């Protein structure tokens, strides 16, 4: 299987699977909103599918609660490669307001470490901050992942005394 070829074809046809890992629904309704007339992601060839077997991208929302973790791992494992992940919202990116709770894993970075241990490769990740991430932000995240738009934000370290 030619990963590079498949990845380049994803640029014009992207099927997404919505993976809620215990989010508050805020990002989830914005994901759904992105499908509706005002934002209409279908114009990019993006389609929401019901089975991870059909999906190219998992739209991951939520901080990954203990109870969903095994199911999330299984769903990601079921996706055929190349498989991408869009971590949507403060919870999926950094654990959100509950990052230090006892019953959550605390976002996709932690999950990625676990996945690596289990031998499940992810071929691309984009982090979309927001609480909830607005539909435009989700669109921007996906286009950034596909290389259509450029990432704007960069790490900054500035001195206060200067």
């Amino acid at each position, binding site marked *: *299987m*030619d990963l590079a*070829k*498949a990845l380049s*074809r*994803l640029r*014009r*046809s992207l*099927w997404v699977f919505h993976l809620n890992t215990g989010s508050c629904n805020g990002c989830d309704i914005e994901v759904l909103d992105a499908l*509706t*007339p005002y934002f*209409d992601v*279908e*114009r*990019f*060839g993006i*389609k929401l*599918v*019901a*089975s991870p*077997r*059909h999906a*190219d991208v998992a739209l991951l929302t939520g901080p990954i609660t203990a109870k969903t973790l095994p199911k999330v791992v299984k769903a990601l494992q*079921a*996706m*055929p*490669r*190349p498989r991408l992940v869009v971590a949507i919202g403060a919870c999926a990116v950094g654990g959100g307001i509950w990052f230090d709770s006892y019953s959550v894993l605390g976002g996709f970075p932690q999950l990625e470490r676990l996945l690596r241990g289990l031998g499940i490769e992810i071929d691309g990740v984009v982090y979309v901050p927001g609480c909830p991430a607005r539909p435009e932000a989700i669109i921007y995240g996906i286009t950034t992942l596909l290389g259509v738009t450029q990432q704007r934000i960069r790490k900054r370290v500035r001195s206060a005394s200067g």
Partner: protein
Amino acid sequence: MDPILVLASILLTLALVAMPPLIDGVERKVRASIQSRIGPPIIQTWLDLMKLLAKEIKLPESSELAALTALLSVVISVALLCCLAVFTAVRMVSVGAALAIVMLIASLHGLSLLTACTTANPFAAVGSFRRVALTIVNEAGLLLSIALALYSIQISSRSLVPLAISAAMLAISGFANSGRLPYDLHEAEPELASGTVIELSGPLLAAEIYSHLAERMALTALPMYVLFAALAKNLVVRCLGFLAGSIGLWLVFAVTSTVLGRSRVDLAIRSLGAVYASMAIAWTGAVLLC
């Protein structure tokens, strides 16, 4: 055989084989504009298929048969399109031709049931059982309307009304058979599953999608084949009329399914039964009157 007929058959077959994903793209665009949005580019379905071909195949355990059934269904659906194209080009309207078409359609449905069983997914199974339940009613309707159409052609010199009624009936059974709203019951529960193909991935899924679209094309083209093969004597008019009619009917179907919701198995069977019965009565009336 006349070489021009051979050429026409080949061209028509190629057009029919290449068209389904393209018209599906148009259908998606039409649906989008009814929903006040832009929608995907017209070649989107082709792009989707190309992408799926490049993806990894992930098979659930003990479902090696799925690969076989997926390929087989592509072969059968292409054969189906082939039959329609050739029969139209050479103006072959007979009981034998009708039987060949019905057999091919029935075997496609049988195959999708087999695919669902190989994947052992409960939703795939529910989906295919529903499809079978609906198919039993539909196949009866299809057979009936083809029989009525064949008879109407024979009496078409007397009156065209019976032929029109039977063609409409054929179109309705084609619409119900093509897995569009409100009759896409095999999709099981909307978000829990995508019906019989739920466990397939990559090229296998592409094969299933293509064969599904090809079957849709065949079902749409069926009433056009009956009409044009029976009535149009000129080869060019016949072939182009057949093609244009099929595309037009496809778009009518697209708009119809966009303004309707999904039916339920019992409702669907009841409503379809009522439609077939009343149309058969109307046809009988028309035959008796002319």
